[in-house]
């Protein structure tokens, strides 16, 4: 028996990526309330941190008097981290249920299967990010300008992709949802060990050192620049470089795990 004729490789790969992204959409659309935790967590953190630490802007060294403006990019990135890590948890669940076998037994390249999962997380991250931003504006956060907004959302999408690579790597390594706390805690640590709560100069010495070497610091600063001042290329490119580097490293590690599922 002859196999049915297939589409050209690039078209087949693109169709597979889009189909896998469409599948993850079902989680939000078809499960009542499924989107709520992903939106609730960063929103609670935003409102809570703003209410608790808002007076910090009285310290000299803060570029803005509005703590909402200072912290909203962090909360948006937190939402992205949460969404990306959740993609890893879902992959682990799919593995436990045997669904991943269905994907692995198909001729679709491994990088295509991973890309579908990662891009889906990037797209979903817009939901909590937009929600938190709307609340921040309602509380008086500064308008970052179109350029600031675009850069911030680009950082959000890329951070979600990084988190999804991290989560996918752990999911394929441990093949179990029990790795979920590590997925979430890892991203939370990475995002908050930055000038998340205060400018770099006001951090405690140990955190200032850690934040100085944490690539996510550049991402936070780039996402924040429009909200606390003006957007410049010198304030943006380090963040883009950091994201590119993290995506390369974590993406490679995730792909390696995907290729080693049969070992």
């Amino acid at each position: 028996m002859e196999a049915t004729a297939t589409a050209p490789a690039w078209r087949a790969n693109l169709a597979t990526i889009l189909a896998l992204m469409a599948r993850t959409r079902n989680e939000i659309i078809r499960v009542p309330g499924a989107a709520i935790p992903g939106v609730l967590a960063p929103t609670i953190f935003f409102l809570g941190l703003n209410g608790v630490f808002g007076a910090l802007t009285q310290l000299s060294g803060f570029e803005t008097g509005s703590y909402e403006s200072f912290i909203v990019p962090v909360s948006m990135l937190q939402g992205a981290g949460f969404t990306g890590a959740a993609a890893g948890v879902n992959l682990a669940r799919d593995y436990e249920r045997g669904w991943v076998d269905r994907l692995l037994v198909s001729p679709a390249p491994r990088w295509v299967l991973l890309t579908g999962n990662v891009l889906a997380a990037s797209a979903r991250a817009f939901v909590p990010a937009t929600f938190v931003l709307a609340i921040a504006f309602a509380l008086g956060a500064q308008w970052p300008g179109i350029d600031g907004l675009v850069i911030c959302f680009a950082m959000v999408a890329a951070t979600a992709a990084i988190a999804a690579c991290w989560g996918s790597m752990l999911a394929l390594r441990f093949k179990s949802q029990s790795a979920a706390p590590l997925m979430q805690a890892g991203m939370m640590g990475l995002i908050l060990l930055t000038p998340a709560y205060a400018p770099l100069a006001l951090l405690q010495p140990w955190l200032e050192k850690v934040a100085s070497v944490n690539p996510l610091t550049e991402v936070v600063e780039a996402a924040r620049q429009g909200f606390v001042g003006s957007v410049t290329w010198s304030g943006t490119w380090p963040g883009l470089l950091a994201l590119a580097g993290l995506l390369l490293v974590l993406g490679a590690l995730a792909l390696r795990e995907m290729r080693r599922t049969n070992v």
Partner: protein
Amino acid sequence: MPAIEVAGLERAFGEVLAVQGIDIAVAEGEIYGFLGPNGAGKTTTVRMLTTLLLPTGGTASVAGHDVVAEARQVRSSIGVALQEAALDPLMTGRELIRLQATLQGLPPASGRKRADGLLERVGLSDAAERRVGTYSGGMQRRLDLAAALVHEPRVLFLDEPTTGLDPVSRKTIWEEVRALNDDGTTVFLTTQYLEEADQLADNVGIIDSGRIVAEGTPEALKGEVGRPHLELLVGEGAVQEAERACAGLGKLLPPKDGKRVLLEVENGAADIPRVVIALDEAGVAVESLELVRPTLDDVFVAKTGYHLEEEEDAGAKEAEPA
């Protein structure tokens, strides 16, 4: 060229050798039944042949492609329905088959057409727009089977396709497998059900503890075991006495449960009177007597020393590593 060719295939998990150097040759258009108890190595073998698991020794080729060096080509040529019907409960039946078509690289139009045709073929057209989570076990298996066929594979792997199904659903799956084979698809079927292998398979390989202990057509295998045997249902606690009475009248086989004596006889029904007289003289009450022709379970007993069905009931073996 065989559709599936396996030589010295091995898979170790740490110290445990789950598959210990097996050889299999499955011809194009054949239904090959791979029979064995839980933990025998069936699923591990299937996972190696479908590229989900790397062998740790030996070689295997499927549809002319090496499972290690040409894994992608193997995946393009095979359809797989694994032991757990890996379905997404949130998707509809139609969405799932279309996704499978996309994964197989089919152009959208032909993928849609194939999906509709297959849903009709397996009797799921009416349920196609319902979520898979609402399907019964039998419906899920049929959907899984349809998904495995979307790209018209040369070789179809079915890992215990009817485990857990009611008799009606099982029969439906059997009919579908026969129909596929009539269309020319090679089928590699693993099962722990003797009747399934007997009914469907052109050739049967019996695996136990990672080794193939017998291989051949069902008839040839049963013929090897040879003779029919008598199954005597005696009273509680009378088995040993009955066995003593029957010793010398034939070959005593391992008992199946605590109440049945199994006696292999040379001359079939002609030996029944002698046996009945011997038991009567020994004062053993016989509740029922049946002349049983050899089955694949008898083949299994001859090769391994225990019953396949007894193993299923006892659940003595550990599950295979995933």
